[in-house]
């Protein structure tokens, strides 16, 4: 038997239940539309990757209760142009940034709670507003608001495919309780995230090495809706290997490790691959500006693994880690524990130590302490690894989210391959973030994209359905 919600007619069907989906559903409901949300997860892990977020980057002209100062649209635009290296739809980016100004007020009105800017939170206290308790608390507030508004939500319901007639959405085929059901609605908002939890799909962009990627977020983001839309002739945007990926502890869970598995010691360390060789300048720039490239760097090493090695001098200079480091009084002993070629690693660190130039070490900013005569060089924070005990952290690529998605316009309408927007289909969130993020990332942008386009999608879908 299908859940009773599947048989009742709805104006707007929202696929997904994260920030973008909620933004769409709540907006559509406020415009008087009947709304059904289809969530693939159970209650414990509901809300997709939004459950793991922490803050939202939004434009504002002055300090508020939640941010320490002005971050205007121009500065936001410059930041995004820099991180994406211009690989974006500038018009949509501008539009999103301008519209992001009232994200926080809108969220507050839904009952979402923010915390005052606290010191030391990643240097984002001026630009980003932080959710009290983080993303899961935000999602709890969202679900409460949705229940109160009378939005139907069916959990553990996975969309297998989308049925279309030309450019018109007809129904979603939804698996629930082991059975496939056809769920019709007048309109649909696609807010079902990316495909980072679908290792087979990742292999299409990355090859077999994707087997060794860790997925930082929801195991539910398998991209079935996105795939079905592409099969139905929707127009893709973004490259299949473009994603946000960082260096995380290699011992992290395959899925859902979230924020706590990050490794922040790279700039103070020597990073070797399993052969014991260095492969990149660990001290190129401060960590917030470099952590996002290290996922890719590690992915290119043998077995997609690397090892950050520090000595006791550097302990305590970086965020504590969720797993204890491997530890030994000798480099050979550490190499053995890590499973790294000991002779090569010792030689690598010997050569590195010999190349370290004298300087005034300063943990908090690029200090110019560098190496000379070793390849690759280390530009900052280069200190000899010579004071036992030695510590090592295994590092793997943790994928956060993918950028290949559906092309949309300012009205969040999904384009078909013929260049025309689909009749009754809108998209919001990660499934369309690639329109703005061709590459690179600035923390908290995903939340803004999801909220801005989610609200537009909800509004447009409600209007269309009720006309």
């Amino acid at each position, binding site marked *: 038997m299908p859940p009773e919600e599947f048989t009742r007619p709805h104006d707007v069907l929202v696929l997904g239940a994260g920030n973008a989906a909620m933004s769409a559903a709540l907006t559509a409901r406020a415009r008087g539309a009947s709304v059904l949300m289809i969530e693939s997860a159970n209650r*414990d892990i509901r809300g997709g990757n939004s*459950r*793991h977020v*922490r803050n939202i980057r939004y434009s504002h002209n002055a300090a508020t209760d939640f941010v320490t100062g002005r971050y205007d649209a121009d500065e936001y635009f410059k930041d995004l142009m820099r991180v994406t290296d211009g690989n974006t739809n500038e018009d949509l980016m501008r539009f999103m940034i301008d519209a992001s100004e009232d994200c926080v007020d809108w969220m507050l009105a839904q009952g979402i*709670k923010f*915390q*005052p800017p*606290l010191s*030391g*939170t990643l240097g984002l206290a001026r630009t980003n507003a*932080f959710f*009290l*308790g*983080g*993303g*899961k*608390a935000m999602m*709890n507030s969202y679900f*409460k608001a949705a229940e109160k508004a009378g939005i139907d939500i069916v959990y553990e319901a996975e969309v297998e495919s989308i049925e279309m007639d030309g450019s018109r959405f007809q129904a979603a085929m939804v698996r629930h309780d082991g059975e496939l059901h056809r769920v019709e609605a007048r309109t649909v908002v696609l807010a079902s995230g990316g495909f980072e939890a679908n290792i087979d799909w990742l292999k299409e962009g990355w090859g077999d090495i994707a087997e060794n990627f860790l997925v930082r977020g929801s195991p539910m983001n398998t991209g079935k809706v996105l795939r079905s839309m592409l099969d139905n002739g929707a127009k893709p945007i973004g490259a299949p290997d473009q994603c946000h990926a960082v260096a995380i502890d290699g011992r992290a*869970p395959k899925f*859902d490790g*979230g*924020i*706590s*598995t*990050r490794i922040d010691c790279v700039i103070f360390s020597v990073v070797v691959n399993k052969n014991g060789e260095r492969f990149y300048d660990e001290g190129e720039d401060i960590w917030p500006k470099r952590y996002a490239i290290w996922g890719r760097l590690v992915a290119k090493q043998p077995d997609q693994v690397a090892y950050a090695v520090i000595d006791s001098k550097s*302990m*305590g200079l970086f*965020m*504590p*880690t*969720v797993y204890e480091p491997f530890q030994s009084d000798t480099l050979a002993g550490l190499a053995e524990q890590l499973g790294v070629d000991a002779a090569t690693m010792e030689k690598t660190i010997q050569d590195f130590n010999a190349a370290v130039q004298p300087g005034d070490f300063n943990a908090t900013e690029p200090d110019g302490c560098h190496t000379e005569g070793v390849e690759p060089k280390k530009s900052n924070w280069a200190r000899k690894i010579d004071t036992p005990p030695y510590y090592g952290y295994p590092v793997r690529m943790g994928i956060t989210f993918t950028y290949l998605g559906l092309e949309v316009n300012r009205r969040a309408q999904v384009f078909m391959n013929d260049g025309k927007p689909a009749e009754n289909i809108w998209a919001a969130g990660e499934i369309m973030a690639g329109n703005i993020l061709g590459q690179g990332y600035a923390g908290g942008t995903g939340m803004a994209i999801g909220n801005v386009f989610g609200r537009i999608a909800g509004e447009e879908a409600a209007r269309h359905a009720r006309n």
Partner: protein
Amino acid sequence: MPETETLQEAKRVMQICNACRYCEGYCAVFPAMNKRLTFSDGDVTYLANLCHGCQGCYYACQYAPPHEFAVNVPKAFAELRAETYRDYAWPGIFKGLFEGNGKWVALITLVLTIAVTAGVFMVQGADVVAGVHTGTGAFYKVIPHDVIVYLASAPFLFAGLAFIVGLVTFWRDIGGKPGELLHPGALAQALKDAGQMKYMSGGGHGCNYPNDNFSMGRRHAHQMTMWGFLLCFAATSVATLYHYAFGWEAPYDYFSIPVILGTLGGIGIVIGPIGLLMIKKKADPAPQDTKRTGMDVAFLWLLMLTGITGLALLALRETAAMGTLLAVHLGIVLGMFVTFPYGKMVHAVYRLGALIKFAHERRS
């Protein structure tokens, strides 16, 4: 202190939390955690007693069960607090009273109440106890003033001593320096935080119950309980002053200071615990230490019965019920005082110690 499973679990959880830090906005625990890279026994004992059990961090946690990290800070800390209460009990031979605490507290109070009531009847005779007494010194015709004073002050002063010994030992073990415990600035800050129950406001929106709902209900019920208790204490203090300094004997006028304070306090320790018991009944057991529900419930009932019998005594003091009510009220108050160091009351002592420590850390 031997390394218990409870300590290990608290350390495990704190290591995960310290690599996440999303909950820094809820209360004092997380800013205090942020200042540490590793966690000793004393560190987690301090943090556990700093936790007010608002449960905000549990519902916000991306690592809560069924996640394999299985992070449940309120439960881990509640279980560790139970160990604190037991381990720092003085004298040590009474530690066992924390096992099955609810039953012990109920039994001790019952025995004392029966003993006092029976004793009064036996010594004074039913005619006196069931008689109507009015005017100055009316109570003391049933139980002489000195008897009340000795009976009540002995366990009360002993409880005070036990609290001090427990607090000083706790303070040493959580890494506090001897002189800092009474540092005026830190003490004032801690008393302010305790008085307002600041950290029951969970980042400004209240505790989470019965599920992920935010509500100030628990904070307000707890405030009523605590301030009710303190008003009762103030009423007794003023009355003592009246008696010894001015020679004015109870019962006092309905609009006298001791009676007004006592009435308000009595209402507080009846309504507050009713609220807390209702919240407890509705609450999600997942983030709680359900093993010590008995301790919590016994303490709340004890306060409530103290309030009810006290208010009844006030209302019926000019009737024949006064004598019996006075004896019962005294018995229950004795039960409360005797079990103070071996029941839920001690949470206030270690909470205050933890708040003083946090006040110091916040300054540095």
